[in-house]
């Protein structure tokens, strides 16, 4: 299992990287990127009251909404700019409309496998009834374009929800 995940990761990164850069080296970057997957669960707190907590995607079945959270931290000594985070909607999940968030970020979506990105109102598909806005379930990628400089030591967070199909 672990091995196959490694291969997945290798292939994915290679493919993504290959789109923007002809070659690259495995060097330390100045931003640390983490991604976690969580689900909401009703738990009973120490006070005996029920509340909703975010827990790892332990019990995740079709229909479960999963919250994917990407955090990024500038671990370098210089400010970083032009930060963009590209997140393909995981296979076997469906983007939940309106769930993408990210402070100071312009959020755009792709319906063509990440080739082009646009705001939801500008994503159009041709149907028998004419051109219509693409449904969120048709989104393939999300992109956050961070509008600020990320100072050394500063962090940012973006995320979205997707429902397991």
């Amino acid at each position, binding site marked *: 299992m672990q091995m*196959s*995940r*490694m*291969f*997945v*990761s*290798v292939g*994915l*990164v290679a*493919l*993504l*990287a290959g789109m923007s*850069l002809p070659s*690259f*080296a*495995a060097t*330390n970057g*100045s*931003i*640390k*990127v*983490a*991604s*976690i*997957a969580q689900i909401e*669960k009703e738990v009973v707190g120490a006070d005996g009251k029920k509340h909703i*907590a975010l*827990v*790892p*995607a*332990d*019990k*995740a*079945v*079709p*229909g479960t909404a*999963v919250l*994917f959270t*990407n*955090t990024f931290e500038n*671990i*370098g000594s210089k400010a*970083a*700019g*032009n*930060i*963009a985070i*590209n*997140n*393909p*909607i*995981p*296979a*076997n*999940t469906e983007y939940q409309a309106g769930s993408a968030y990210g402070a100071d970020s312009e959020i755009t979506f792709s319906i063509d*496998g*990440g080739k082009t990105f646009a705001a939801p109102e500008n994503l159009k598909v041709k149907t028998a009834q004419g051109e219509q806005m693409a449904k969120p379930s048709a989104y393939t*990628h999300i992109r956050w374009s961070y509008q600020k400089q*990320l100072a050394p030591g500063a962090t940012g967070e973006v995320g979205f929800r997707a429902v397991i*199909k």
Partner: protein
Amino acid sequence: MKWLKSKSPSKLATLMVSAAVLGLASQSAAALTASGTAINNTASLTYSVGGSTQTPIASAPGGNSIAGTAGAPTSFLVDKKVDFTVTGGAIVNVQPNQAGVVGTTPIAANSNTVLTYTISNIGNDPQGFILTAGNASPVDPTDVFDPTLFQTFVDTNNNGVYDAADTGTSIATLAPGASVKVFILSTIPANSIVPAPLVNGNQALVTLTAQAADTTGTLVGGSTVAGSTNGVALAATAAAAGSNATGGANVSTVDIVFAEVANAGLGLANPANNGIAAANDTYNIQTAMLTVTKLSSVVCDPVTGNVAPNNIPGAAIQWAITISNAAGAGAPANLALPTAISDILDVNTTFDPNKVTGAAVAPFCLGTTAFNAINGLGFTLGTAAPAPGAAPATAAPAGALLLNGAAVTAAPAAGGTVTVDFATLLPAGGARVTAGDLNPGEFITVYFNVFVN
């Protein structure tokens, strides 16, 4: 893409998975993601420092800052969603004392006690089921009797109706999105149950309960669904210890999650998410509604003959025993042997072996007098609706009366048992499916005379 050539054979899989991640693969919206499927998420960050574009960095669950290939997908496995439905709701007409006949296709209404249910797997993994039939609990006010001897069969040949091929008694494996019918046969109680006899419209709710099991049940030969043995009942996976936002959760094994809805309603109280689903069908009593009446009238007496005869010694009394099946009855009553009706003569009366008609004058109102007409060897039968005491419309056909088991050919001797053979009297044909049936709205009357001692 040179790296493809230098790596192990798994790069083809790598490429395929990457394509899927990029949204190039499509999946039917109807099918649920299969249990055990890995959901992988990887974000990729591009940035620049001092105006220079840097190498993209891929995410990792715990964070990654090494550019290029060092990221790792945030991954978890889709768990086993145990979700299924049992549907019933059918109303099947039955008669008291009717037994479920195994292997017999119900070819007409009321011909067998088959109840039909449907079990549908709406989860994301093949699923076995343990089936249990029983009387509805809690008992609903409309549930007035309890069938017994339940037998449960799966639609082994998958043709939608119960028949001899349906020998499977459990569901060994039902694919996600698939459905199968399940049949329950039982025996309906006799209509003499306490506190009240069964009457038309009485109902019994019968519950089919399906419990989720693994797929280790033995398949019945030729079937891909029906089993001859049960699998092992599933238990929901307990929450992982230390389950919180930072770790300890069980994301790399497939958990069992019960997701089926509760079943409530008449005679049903099954909570949600317990791996069990249930539904009720209904037996509805639709039977013959027999009434038996016995009326007497004086045919003649030795004093006044047949003119205003009185009930005095020597008088001939005619008894008329009428069996009727009500016009609104739900089924014919079969009166063929061994069904019997018996009548013990009062000690103060003597059976009239010749069944005098009373047409003669007073002095001849005696059984031994040759002037009395003989009609029906002591009995007559009628299927019309005569007024009490009136002459019957139909003489008994030959063979309809038996004396001590043999056809009556002469006036019956005293002391014998006379039997009416309704199968002969009510032959099959037309609306009468089975000889001896007294259809709804029909009746039959047996007449005989006695003399007052």
